[in-house]
């Protein structure tokens, strides 16, 4: 579209190719008092895209609860920080790398892991765990096989090499991701509370130091690409995908942590999206100072790189620091020992401008505030669509005899089957502190050298979110809360990775607004604040948006590792008990989608009061040592959850409960439920605790044998079920 009133020297098409709207360009001209040169245009483009500026989402994100007694640092820094006692803190964040991973799955996923690791160790934390939330298209879509294999080996390739265990995550398959997969990577690190590093530059005259890899021409405009929709020509964008070098990152990690032991670093920021541009501006803005950088001094991988290329390169494994000048030589020696680049490229100034020099000439000069504070912020129009109606299912709609067959079909489906094929490609044990490995509700990693641990889990049900974004938003938060509780931990805080379609469409913006409202209500009720996060919008291909996917990563604390619980059944003769009522809500369940190939019936609703009561009860029962194993009841319903406990423990169960609506009872996805294995000695005590807390608690079966036997329905060998459970994901990759 040509604007006939275009009155600027700069070509209109150049502005558009930089992803800037014409009125945004006018704002730049107004702020600078002149038209920007090409380098400056590139800088504005990088800073004002959705990925860096959060221009569509900021207004709504501010509504999320972000404080709590254990919150040391909420959103706004490289990662969130929570207090885990004894002077220790956990530092964590989740981030998306969706578009690059669709274009080049191995490198896209690998650099996603690399980026989130840097966010965490920039703050002074040693990364101790990686997780990932992945969404692919339909299992039989022609691209799924290639994307799944590529993403999994990319995540493994990076995490295994750097030596941080990949301990958990989630994978979904749904046609809404056929043209736009989601790769969300989360890292959790541990630091000392009095040794957290921030990004605010300070001290006029202090050196600005570049460390890590050299800068090449890779990934130029990656952040702009991440803020645009896909179309048929998107393959042409492959050169904007960065290439990861986990070995250099390992060296950078060790060198940074070694330097952080000294009192040398005043400010530090990793060069992630938009590279040198965003890192330098972030540091200057946070510190309310200016920076002057001599681009000729930037270590370069390619010859004759222009100022534009240097500022927009997204070469990986680089950091920017402001150092105490008296420690410069000591710092240089550390980086030299690790064979890494170390170059003083500029200084802190009091001009509050970003001034770039190249070969003695000034090539850019921009006031920091127009880049950051004056960045566009939109309160986009939104429409909240009616949630899908809730359907009442009746026993006569189902064939009573199909229960065990249906169970088998369901656990073979890639959405419910074992993820073993994936996690066996990840080193999930390096660092030798993994206490609960992948495959349980939450992974548990010991805090090195102590008897406490962190429990962590990622979750989201995009189908729930699509059919009722408010309840779906609540669910994503609550599901991680339940997983963490079932592992024996106290849930503390979350990070969020908000993956949505084009926010300029009111119905997409409406999904975003409603998911946030649901998340916020759940976080407030459960005292489970948001401490970090990331937004990925424009996840669309040819105008078709993905399902709303607010992926949540939760972290909890286990003060005493002897209280860790797993989902494996442990002992013959124990009772299996259910916490929480089952009310036959089959709408949008895995049963309806897998067995009936439909997506209808409405998202299950969560009563947050019940959720809190049931969760607190499980926590208390674990603390009082009344519980042998625990599992939350999630997608697939109670029978899938029971089967998971049996398969994991290689034990059978006799289910005694009688019901006049077996499909409703066994496959409904009513919320706020857990399954607990309780020894007969502890049963009365457990029941009493439940009664005292107004919690629905019922014995439904007895552990033992090698079959799942359901009264009036039939038997299923656990070992046979397990074979079905463990094959389907692997089959996609062949």
């Amino acid at each position, binding site marked *: 579209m040509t604007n006939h009133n275009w009155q600027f020297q700069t070509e209109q098409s150049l502005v558009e190719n930089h992803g800037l709207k014409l009125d945004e360009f006018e704002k730049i001209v107004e702020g600078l008092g002149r038209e920007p040169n090409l380098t400056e245009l590139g800088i504005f483009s990088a800073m004002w895209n959705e990925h860096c500026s959060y221009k569509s989402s900021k207004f709504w994100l501010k509504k999320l609860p972000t404080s709590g007694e254990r919150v040391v640092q909420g959103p706004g820094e490289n990662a969130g920080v929570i207090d885990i006692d004894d002077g220790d803190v956990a530092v964590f964040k989740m981030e998306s790398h969706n578009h690059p991973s669709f274009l080049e799955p191995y490198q896209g996923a690998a650099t996603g892991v690399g980026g989130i690791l840097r966010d965490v160790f920039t703050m002074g934390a040693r990364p101790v765990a990686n997780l990932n939330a992945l969404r692919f298209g339909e299992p039989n879509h022609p691209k799924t096989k290639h994307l799944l294999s590529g993403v999994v080996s990319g995540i493994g390739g990076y995490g295994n090499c*750097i*030596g941080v265990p990949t301990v958990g995550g989630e994978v979904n398959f749904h046609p809404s991701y056929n043209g736009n997969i989601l790769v969300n990577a989360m890292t959790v690190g541990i630091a000392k509370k009095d040794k957290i590093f921030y990004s605010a530059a300070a001290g006029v005259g202090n050196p600005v130091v570049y460390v890590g890899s050299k800068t090449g021409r890779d990934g130029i405009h990656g952040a702009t690409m991440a803020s645009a929709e896909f179309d048929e020509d998107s393959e042409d964008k492959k050169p904007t995908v960065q290439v990861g070098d986990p*070995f*250099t990152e390992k060296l950078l990690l060790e060198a940074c942590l070694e330097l952080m032991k000294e009192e040398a670093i005043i400010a530090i920021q990793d060069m992630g999206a938009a590279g040198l541009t965003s890192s330098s501006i972030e540091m200057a803005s946070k510190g309310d100072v200016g920076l002057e950088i001599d681009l000729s001094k930037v270590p370069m991988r390619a010859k004759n790189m222009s100022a534009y290329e240097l500022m927009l390169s997204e070469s990986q494994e680089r950091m920017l620091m402001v150092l105490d000048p008296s420690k410069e030589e000591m710092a240089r020696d550390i980086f030299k020992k690790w*064979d890494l680049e170390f170059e003083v490229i500029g200084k802190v100034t009091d001009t509050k401008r970003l001034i770039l020099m190249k070969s003695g000439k000034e090539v850019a000069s921009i006031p920091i505030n127009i880049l950051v504070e004056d960045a566009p912020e939109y309160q986009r129009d939104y429409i909240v669509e009616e949630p899908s109606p809730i359907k009442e299912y009746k026993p006569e709609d189902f064939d009573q005899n199909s229960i065990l067959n249906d169970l088998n079909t369901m656990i073979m489906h890639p959405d419910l089957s074992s993820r073993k094929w994936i996690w066996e*490609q990840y080193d999930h044990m390096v*660092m030798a502190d993994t206490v609960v490995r992948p495959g349980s509700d939450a992974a548990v990693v010991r805090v090195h050298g102590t008897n406490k641990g962190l429990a962590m889990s990622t979750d989201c049900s995009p189908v729930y979110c699509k059919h009722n974004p408010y309840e779906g938003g609540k669910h994503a938060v609550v599901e991680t809360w339940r997983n963490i509780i079932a592992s024996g931990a106290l849930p503390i805080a979350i990070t969020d990775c908000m993956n949505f379609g084009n926010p300029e469409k009111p119905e997409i913006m409406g999904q975003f607004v409603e998911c946030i409202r649901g998340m916020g209500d759940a976080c407030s009720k459960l005292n489970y604040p948001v401490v970090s996060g990331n937004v990925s919008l424009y996840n669309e291909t040819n105008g078709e948006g993905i399902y709303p996917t607010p992926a949540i990563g939760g972290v909890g604390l286990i003060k005493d590792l002897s209280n860790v619980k797993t989902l494996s059944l442990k002992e013959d003769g124990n009772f299996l008990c259910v916490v929480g009522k089952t009310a036959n809500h089959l709408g949008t369940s895995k049963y309806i989608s897998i067995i009936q190939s439909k997506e209808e019936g409405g998202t299950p609703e969560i009563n947050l009061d019940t959720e809190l009561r049931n969760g607190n009860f499980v926590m208390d029962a674990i603390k009082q040592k009344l519980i042998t194993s625990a599992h939350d009841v999630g997608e697939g319903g109670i029978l899938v959850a029971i089967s998971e406990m049996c398969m994991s423990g290689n034990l059978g169960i006799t289910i005694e409960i009688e019901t006049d609506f077996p499909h409703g009872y066994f496959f409904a996805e009513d919320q706020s439920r857990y399954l607990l294995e309780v020894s007969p000695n502890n049963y009365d005590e457990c029941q009493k605790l439940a009664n005292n807390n107004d919690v629905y608690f019922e014995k439904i079966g007895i552990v033992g044998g090698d079959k799942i036997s359901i009264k009036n329905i039939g038997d299923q060998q656990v070992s046979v079920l397990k074979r079905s459970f463990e094959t389907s994901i692997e089959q996609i990759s062949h």
Partner: protein
Amino acid sequence: MKSHVIVFPGSNCDRDVAVAIKNISSHQPQMVWHKETSINQSDLIVVPGGFSYGDYLRCGAMASTSPIMQDIVKKAKEGVPVLGICNGFQILIESGLLDGALMRNSSLSFICRDILIKPKNQSSVFTKNAQVAKMPIAHNEGNFFVTSEQLKKIQDNDQIAFQYCDENGNVSEHSNPNGSLENIAGILNENKNVLGMMPHPERAAELAHGCEDGKTIFESILN
């Protein structure tokens, strides 16, 4: 008791093995940076797992040329016990201390899971107390290969330390995770003072790991 753990750029099991040694022997091993040229008197030198030099060249090839390796080769020839785990095994092969080659896993993918190993040699300083043991593997290139002449030599000389086996101790194709010839999980040098193995005993060395079978290897040499 003095032990040393070598640290290469890209080593990532150096701390894990040091912690295991400390827990088992109550002696703190000394960490040795790869650019150093000699090790003082030592009762055990460990070349740990990881991705030395990113494994960008053939695994272990770059690290085998690090300055410290000359002294390790010399010490090994003098009879000092040297243990290479995972990437450490690859490095010891590249430095010529052990026979064979470690190729890409037959599945062509990285494998991280518990396996079982059975000692074949039961007389070396490392294996004298060994039994069937469970411990994790975590590697991309653990598919052991030797020529038929070399195989005969290591068999005749009782140099096969461990073989992958099943719950009943049977060495079968089914129990072979990575395609290794003869299910070989670890081998010794001729003098039986150098052991290279793909499984990670340091990750099965305390209750929190869920299994303590890996302790035996350290105990037999440290105590």
